């Protein structure tokens, strides 16, 4: 993971930022700021799946460690809770923000039911964008027609410099699925050792 801590924007230290605004335009601006904060935070920490329920469960033990002494585990707890000004975005407001991001195609519930689950995909790159990146990489390295395993694609030495190195396997499946639909790739093999062939 990234060694340096995430630099929060200045709104993060503005107490009203954690209260749902009643004015519609202000509320809209608030949602935009929150979603861009979530996206850049997840991009920084390369988080693909975010568990929302983490924040209330860990709320009982936040203060045993002083916020400056030990860097908290990256995730929803650090993202939605500012211990310096002792403010926390409520779960309802988080869900509202996620809904706002879903409309924009920047988030998706992992559970197929939708609103029921509390783990969400955060698409700081959407599956389409991932698919494009992979295709570009395949083009650039001249691997059209070759067969690659999925593990090779995300964890292999060949992709170490590429952006999708370390991509979540489920997200990779989604991205490859898009390529398959376009007729640019074909997936075969069993569950644990799948391979993909690019055309």
């Amino acid at each position, binding site marked *: 993971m990234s060694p340096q801590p995430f630099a929060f924007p200045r709104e993060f230290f503005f107490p009203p930022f954690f*209260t749902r605004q009643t004015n519609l335009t*202000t509320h809209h601006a608030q949602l*935009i700021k929150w979603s861009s904060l979530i996206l850049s935070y997840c991009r920084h920490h390369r988080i693909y799946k975010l568990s929302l329920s983490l924040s209330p469960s860990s709320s009982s033990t936040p203060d045993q460690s002083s916020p400056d002494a030990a860097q908290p585990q990256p995730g929803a707890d650090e993202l939605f809770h500012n211990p310096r000004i002792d403010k926390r975005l409520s779960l309802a407001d988080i869900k509202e923000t996620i809904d706002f991001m879903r409309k924009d195609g920047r988030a998706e519930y992992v559970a197929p039911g939708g609103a029921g689950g509390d783990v969400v995909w955060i698409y700081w790159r959407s599956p389409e964008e991932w698919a494009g990146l992979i295709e570009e990489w395949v083009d650039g390295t001249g691997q059209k027609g070759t067969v690659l395993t999925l593990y090779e694609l995300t964890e292999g030495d060949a992709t170490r410099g590429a952006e999708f190195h370390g991509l979540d396997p489920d997200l990779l499946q989604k991205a490859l699925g898009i390529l398959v639909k376009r007729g640019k790739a074909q997936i075969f093999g069993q569950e644990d050792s799948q391979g993909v062939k690019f055309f």
Partner: protein
Amino acid sequence: MFLKQIDLTTALRPSYLTDEVLLFVQDNVGLYEGKYKLPNQQNGQVYLTSHRICYVDKAEPRKQSVALDLKDVERYEFYAGFLKSSAKVTLIPKPSKRSSLQSRSPGLGSAPSRNGTASPLQRADSPLRAPPVDQPPASTATWVCTICTFSNPVPSNFDPATANVHTPLPPCLACGIKPTLTHVLKAAISNATSRAPNSLTPSLQTPLPHRSRPVSELSGLVSEPSTPVGTPPPQSADPDASFQCPRCTFLNHPSLMVCEMCGAQLISHDVPPELRQIQDRTESPGPFLNPAVASLASNPDTPESVKISFRGGGEKIFYERLKGAMAQRKWLLQGAPPIPKSLRLGDSTSSLSSGGEQGITGGRPPTERVKTAGIAGLEQRGLDRRKNNEIVIGTAFEDLEALMASAKEIVALAESFARQGNGGKNSARDNALLAESAAQLGLITTKDIVGGADESLYLSELARNLAEFLTDDARGVLRKAGGIMSLVDLWAMFNRARGGVELVSPQDFEKAVRLWEKLKLPVRLRTFKSGVMVVQSRDRTDDTTIKALLGWLQDLHSFPPDRDVPWDWQEFGRGVTAQDAAERFGWSIGVAEEELEMAEERGVLCREEGIEGLKFWENFIDTGEGKSYKTKEQESAESMLRALRQAGFV
């Protein structure tokens, strides 16, 4: 100049002089100078006060409002109106040159030495006063057509003094041939000379029951200076006798309106008002004053009379109150010696009372007073003063006349009693309010002061009254409340300031307050979205409130908060509660809440809900990115459009 420009209050009412009392208000009036309308003063309100008659124009109150002092009025007359001509009150100024003889008229000179019980109404119609000269002109004047010999009436607006070649003349009613100017002029002048003697012969008019006016009956005792010599027509003293036609001298039956022989009008102008139906008009057929003609006609030796035309009624009450005001002559009170003391008391008490009188008026004690020293002297003085107060109150309430005459002293006394009576018990502010209420008495608008059939005039006057009450700098009602106060508070305070008399009902109050917008007064009513109604001055809009709020929040960036705060106060400032805002601006908490929410609604503030309650902050959330932000669909649509444009499809 007889008419003077006047100052208006913020609420567009005349600003009153000291001791001036409002007597009557009537709207929909116009002004005439001489026989001509003043073109800029044709629709306004007339305020009759104890000292002045003020005209406040409706369209351009600041420019066109004028007043005339009652003390400059020589005489005043009442004209009941006839057909399309509205009722008028004519005010004739004192001549400026012949002041030595004329202004020292017996009625005026006798004012200080009058005895206290004389009725003012009697004095008003005193036969010593000069009788009216100005009969409505030319309604009986005729000119005979040279072509067909038909006798035409001279138009009522035809004035021989000002007529020239360009004066429009109506053609003959029978044959349509226009007369020459000299012809009509001759007819008008000859009529004027023959009409004048009529006023000297009251017995001639007595057979006609409705014709005579009390003033003209009394006028017979003194011959008018301006009356030309004329031979009085033969007359019969017998009331049953027939009435002589002024034109052909035929003796008509008294009940006839028109001469049996020649068709001349027998009854012209003195038709009692009951016979006419009152109609509201704003347009009047009279001619307007032409400035060029006016300068020609107006003679400095004979100042023009001023007429007030009542197009919306109310002339009778105005006339009655004017009569009263002219009789009381309040303008003499200023600087006048105190009222003569009653002599019914014995010699010892009269000397006592004179000493006490000085005690009230603040003068030095009389010389003949017995000199006493020490505690006995102090006691004696206290005794004197109490005795005198007793006398003043006793004489004042003896009858209404005396009360009016000594009103000034009684008010002063009442104020001093109020100060002594509840000193220390109530708060200082209440005391001040009570003391003010006595001074306030003269300024209130009551329903009986205001003329007019419906209550709209009363309401508009009340609205002006309220606006004055609010914006009065001395009282500072609105300023003390932070420039904004709820309607209920204002209602309570206003009624208390009226001192418990002529209270305003909540319905009238609300209606009056709603008129502010229409009357363009400097205060306005505002309804918050919660339904709370508040009043504030007109210049305080939402924008100025927001500016004030923002300025305050900006200040909080530079002043450190009372205790340590976790956030960067230099960057964000501090959140404020409604309580803070109420303290800072002097608002009530309800008003502060509404104002903060209004500012939030405008997107200037944002809220923070915490354990400490609702706080409002400067809006650092919506800093303008929202506008440039685009959703993905918009972006793709735009890129599509761009591509199409590049390809030349669009």
